[in-house]
């Protein structure tokens, strides 16, 4: 079919708008990446730029040689992400499986128990006091894994509705007739068949763990226990403190402040995993939305 003139104009307009948006997204990341590869003197003289006059990989050399505290933080984040996501999926799928059993006595009550956590929240103060005073998780690795992130009501409910709608009742019944107990049904039938939703939820949860800096902010006073995002936060916070204390007394700050290029290198290193799995992430994000993650 021939393209009308109006249609052509529309296509051009659409491309122009979307190209502008794409540039708006790419340029900031370019700034981040380029400044990590910029010579430090150049940065001081000419500031951050999209294309430096003088490239340098000093920042990365420094990170490899002297970045033990950064590697530590990175390692903690990796560990929290792996352990946390595993627990999130395990606890979530077990719970969702039980809630998906239509004849389970008390099913309604338990569903509401999960669901109500989405409506009402005690807020930061009681949560903070509970975790620190009753459970004493301050400065422990648990603080990176447990609060807020280890399970999410919306994820449990999404998994439940997937188990209900995508796994036919006949399969459950067949398993029961064959004498399979609920545990067997869970491990042998629901987990394998629920793979699409498990991957999607796993990615959401993993991303939340990877990007989390609040648990470190709330529950860690020992800098050795910071994850990478909290460490990055702290570095920027120290720069601000330094700038606002008139004479810039270094005593006011606790971490030795890394130069601009090193800072940006740390930030870049922190988003590399996301860039690497982005195609995968994107695919499952779209599927998640199709599954009803809209509410998330």
């Amino acid at each position, binding site marked *: 079919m021939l393209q009308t003139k109006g249609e052509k104009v529309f296509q051009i307009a659409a491309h122009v708008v979307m190209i502008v948006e794409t540039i708006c997204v790419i340029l*900031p990341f370019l700034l981040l990446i380029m400044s990590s590869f910029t010579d430090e003197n150049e940065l001081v003289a000419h*500031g951050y*730029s999209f294309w430096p006059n003088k490239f340098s990989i000093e920042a990365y050399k420094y990170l490899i040689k002297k970045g033990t505290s950064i590697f530590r933080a990175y390692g903690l984040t990796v560990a929290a992400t792996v352990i946390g996501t595993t627990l999130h999926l395990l*606890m979530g799928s077990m719970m969702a499986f039980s809630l998906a059993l239509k004849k389970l006595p008390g099913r309604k009550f338990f569903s509401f128990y999960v669901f109500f956590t989405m409506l009402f929240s005690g807020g930061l*103060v*009681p949560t903070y006091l*509970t975790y620190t005073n009753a459970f004493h998780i301050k400065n422990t690795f648990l603080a990176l894994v447990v609060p807020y992130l280890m399970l999410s009501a919306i994820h449990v409910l999404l998994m439940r509705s997937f188990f209900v709608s995508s796994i036919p009742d006949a399969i459950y019944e067949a398993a029961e007739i064959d004498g399979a107990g609920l545990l067997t049904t869970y491990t042998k039938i629901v987990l394998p068949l629920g793979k699409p939703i498990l991957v999607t939820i796993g990615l959401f949860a993993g991303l939340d763990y990877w990007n989390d800096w609040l648990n470190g902010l709330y529950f860690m006073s020992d800098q050795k226990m910071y994850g990478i995002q909290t460490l990055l*936060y702290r570095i*920027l916070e120290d720069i601000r403190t330094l700038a606002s204390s008139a004479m810039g007394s270094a005593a006011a700050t606790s971490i030795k402040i890394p130069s601009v290029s090193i800072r940006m290198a740390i930030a870049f290193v922190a988003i590399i995993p996301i860039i690497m799995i982005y195609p995968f992430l994107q695919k499952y994000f779209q599927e998640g939305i199709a599954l009803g993650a809209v509410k998330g």
Partner: protein
Amino acid sequence: MKIQQAESQARPVRRVSHRRGRSRYLFKKWAPAYLLMLPGLIYFFINNYIPMTGIVVAFKKYKVSTGIYGSPWNGLKNFEYLFATNDAFTITRNTLCYNLAFILVNMALGVLFAIFITEIKNKYAKKVYQSAVLFPFLISIIIVSYIVFGFLSVDNGMINKSILSPLGLEGVAWYTEKKYWPFILVFVNSWKEVGYSCLIYIAGITGIDDAFYEAAKIDGAGKLRQIWSITLPCLLPTIITIVLLNVGRVFYSNFGLFYQVPMNSGSLFDVTNTIDTYVYRSLMKIGNIGMASAAGFYQSIVGFFLVLFSNTVVRRISPDNALF
């Protein structure tokens, strides 16, 4: 708890009557299900339900030594202090106004981008645009604050050094000038978040029946006309749903966006302080648990009713998308 109840009902006795035999059978059958649920139930109890009861701290004069429940009652004192300050008004205004701006901008841009992306014929370009739009959504707000700092840093930020200075203009002290921040925050927020709503709208547009467009073409309707008379009306329920679900959350704000992107700068508090940043600062920086918990209580209660309200409306419009 309910499990224990179920267990005690099902506890086997020596002489098994018909009824009891049945409940024993039921217990044996369902016990694994309760067991599988148990870790999750305990987690929600600790992470959500204990803090929910802890909300009474707002009515107490909190002492570390006695904990939440042992501290003496304080009536409405904490609230009197909170609402006697200007802060209560400022944080409510900021939280509400920013959220409304975010909802409107993200809706408008999200729908616009979604329409363009679905209409664009070049498959490769389509993919690139779609990937670009979503990417910032996946990045932590801390990284975003680094990027913003790269642009706005007073001494060597990109804007002061490479744009204003070559033009012969004086650099702006971005982190102390509050007049720019409403725009910066709205911009940064939509830069980061628009991809998500855009994806939802794309899913909505893809679901529209092609037959409508075919019929419109036969009737000689141009592209704009098709968008106006088919795409937008068909997308309207989705749009309203998303907007309402967000309206249910207007009392909550993205803490990182308001705390770390403006670098926790004191001279900007007037335009960057929201309920969440206020609670955090009162609790952690100032150590005023009374004020913090009063503001938190205010947020929880109003937030709860807003969610109920928005959900009631969503249920009328599109029951599938209602939370309950």
